[in-house]
């Protein structure tokens, strides 16, 4: 079953085309479905985010708002200095999670109950503020520069 030169080339192009088409389809679908937008507590209200949406929420952990219980459930409020939102999380918080410090939580927005987070990220070291949070705060004019640098 010897193939002509043309057939060989065509089969090569067809295989490449098929793989590329599948890859492009997967990428486009994943980009429309699997990405998560970042909001500040104010954005959630302003942009009318509906309950059930997966969100990333960033801001400062409100002073005095952290409540823990025996079963490692944690509840705290994230603020952008104007609005604030409750975040619930079960598990162990990052080492650098503190009241008054920047935080990013990812989870499902549950309307008035706030966000049920499955991931909570804090800064990596004492100089670092999550970039998304820093930008959001800069926009609001409450950013005081990188503390400690």
């Amino acid at each position, binding site marked *: 079953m010897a*193939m002509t*030169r043309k057939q*060989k*080339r065509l*089969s*090569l192009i067809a*295989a*490449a085309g098929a*793989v*590329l088409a*599948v*890859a492009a389809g*997967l*990428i486009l*679908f*994943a*980009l429309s*479905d*699997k*990405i*998560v*937008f*970042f909001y500040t507590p104010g954005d959630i209200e302003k942009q009318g985010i509906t309950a059930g949406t997966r969100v*990333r929420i960033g801001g400062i952990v409100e002073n005095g708002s952290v409540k823990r219980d*025996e*079963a*490692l459930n944690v509840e705290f409020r994230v603020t952008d200095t104007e609005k604030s939102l409750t975040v619930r999380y*079960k*598990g*162990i*918080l990052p*080492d*650098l999670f503190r009241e008054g410090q920047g935080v990013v939580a*990812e989870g499902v927005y549950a309307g008035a109950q706030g966000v049920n987070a499955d991931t909570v990220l804090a800064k*990596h*070291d*004492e100089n*670092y503020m*999550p*970039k*998304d949070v820093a*930008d959001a705060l800069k926009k609001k004019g409450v950013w005081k520069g990188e503390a400690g640098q």
Partner: protein
Amino acid sequence: MIVELGHFALIMAFVTAMVQTILPMWGAVARDPGLAGMARYSAFVTFALVLLAFVSLTLAYIGSDFSVANVVMNSHSTKPLMYKISGVWSNHEGSMLLWVLILTVFAALVAVRGGGMPERLLASVLSVQGAIAAAFLLFVILTSNPFLRLSDPPAEGQGLNPILEDPGLAIHPPMLYLGYVGFSVAFSFAVGALIHGRIDAVWARFVRPWTLVAWIFLTLGIAMGSYWAYYELGWGGWWFWDPVENASLMPWLLGTALLHSTVVMEKRDALKVWTILLSILTFSFSLLGTFLVRSGVITSVHSFASDPTRGIFILCILMLFIGGGLVLFAWRAPMLRQGGLFAPVSREGALVVNNLFLATSAVAVLVGTLYPLALEMLNGNKISVGAPYFNMTAVPLFIALLLFVPFGQSLAWKRGDLLGVGQRLLVAFGIAIAAMIGTFAVTRGGPVAAPLGLGLGVWLIMGSATDIFNRCYRKGISFGIAFDRAVGLPRSAWGTALAHAGMGITVIGISATVWGVETLGVIRKSEPLSVGPYTVTLEQAFKRSGQGFREDVARFTVSEGGALRGAVETSKRIHLGREMPTTEAGIVTYGLGQLYASVNEIMPDGRVSIRFYWKPLVTLIWGGALVMGIGGALSLSDRRARIAVSVKNRKSVLTKSGARV
């Protein structure tokens, strides 16, 4: 004084790198052997000067010279020697210097080993290496100079970031850089070939060992980084699809493709233009990775500083080399003599499939990594592209590729017999299916993904075993002869089989993560907690201080079915000086799995809030990467024989040993 010497050497290295860029290229184009011959000497001199600069900085670190700003920021006189030395590349400036050092090491090695290469090709390869070195040396000198002195030196340094204070720092960055930067050789060879308009199987034979070296180091470097993150960050995860991880994965994917396409070029003189393009793209991805990590456009543990001039500078270097390389490709590639075409069902056809899947999965990772940056620039929307995206794009493409691998490995060159291959692989396939069904039956009710992935891993391992078996054994020959044949197989055959089996081992380790158990709890002294098959009991919670830190330690005993198996300690550590808390995870290995403890808080009343994981087979993830690296090294050791023996003799040697070429 030594610091000034290093600083001076760094500037001189820039000058010699410029000489290395201009004169040899001129010589190569104008066919002036004298100028072309300058390539090797200038490569040696540039390497020596960068080495001198690097050693000077290292000495400043060892001697705790706190008049140097870089030492003050990243070292402390009480640090152990290992952290003083690895502290050199714990920061942006020092790690860029290491980057350039490795680049010049590769150039010098090419110069040493280039004796048998055509003089003009060698000259242009070293010239391109010189240009990359010059660009990055300028970057270091102008924006990231590690030799800057302080007019008012402090008495003590600020110490190392505690997360970096780990043996991993001594190994991970140099390995990763050897991988990243090693691909520059393939890039330079591609540019050299484009300039001369000549490319053939000999070219591929020169390029392949360098690509293999880079690939081995990148594989091990990524695995090392993954294990480091796993035990250091205390989250129990081994891969986070973090942009910085993706930055190392993309060159790995393309580098793996390049490794396979150079084989086709070497053996069959085909896929030439594609291999050239792949050489350019692989190093481009390495540069892109350097840009992503070093420019501060993304924040992670790896971004030491975000000075916008640095980002713009690296972006310019990026555009110069990627853009220049691609423009040269677009202009000169049509003039290259096209390689031959081949039958779709053949070893080379299978390697095309390999390249297709690897390249598209690299693109999927690229899109996922850059899309958030692009979107933010376009409309200010901030998004996060995480595991769900990559699990839907790159992962299925990669799985499809892995399903193919045993077929490709068993197909013959030129014209493969798919039916015959299918028959030969029947046993391997049967074992894989049996492993899958067996696991499924044993873990009934558990997740389905794990047995499927495990079957895939077994399929890869058995596919490699089948390939080796069929090379050694034919019906009717004795065991002794088969054994002799196995010993006589070219090392590259064993290398391929090991590398693919290593991938299979990693796949099994990854699949088994689905069976992982996580237990959270707040427990008192002597209170038990069950974690998968084990029971842990809080033995003691106490305070302890060590060199440069104090910590709250929780100590647990581990038992299985009533029998004591050992103990595990995890602690919350406060590093003095930086007052920064870190969690020190406690890890004990049982068989191939690991019990992972991470303390959250030790409460004043003595209770401990803790997280435990039982991770069955988890060590296979990194063990598989190690096997891949060993496979690569075996292939590499085959190189000498391949280059020394002429093509004609090689054929007869291989026929004698019963191997298919």
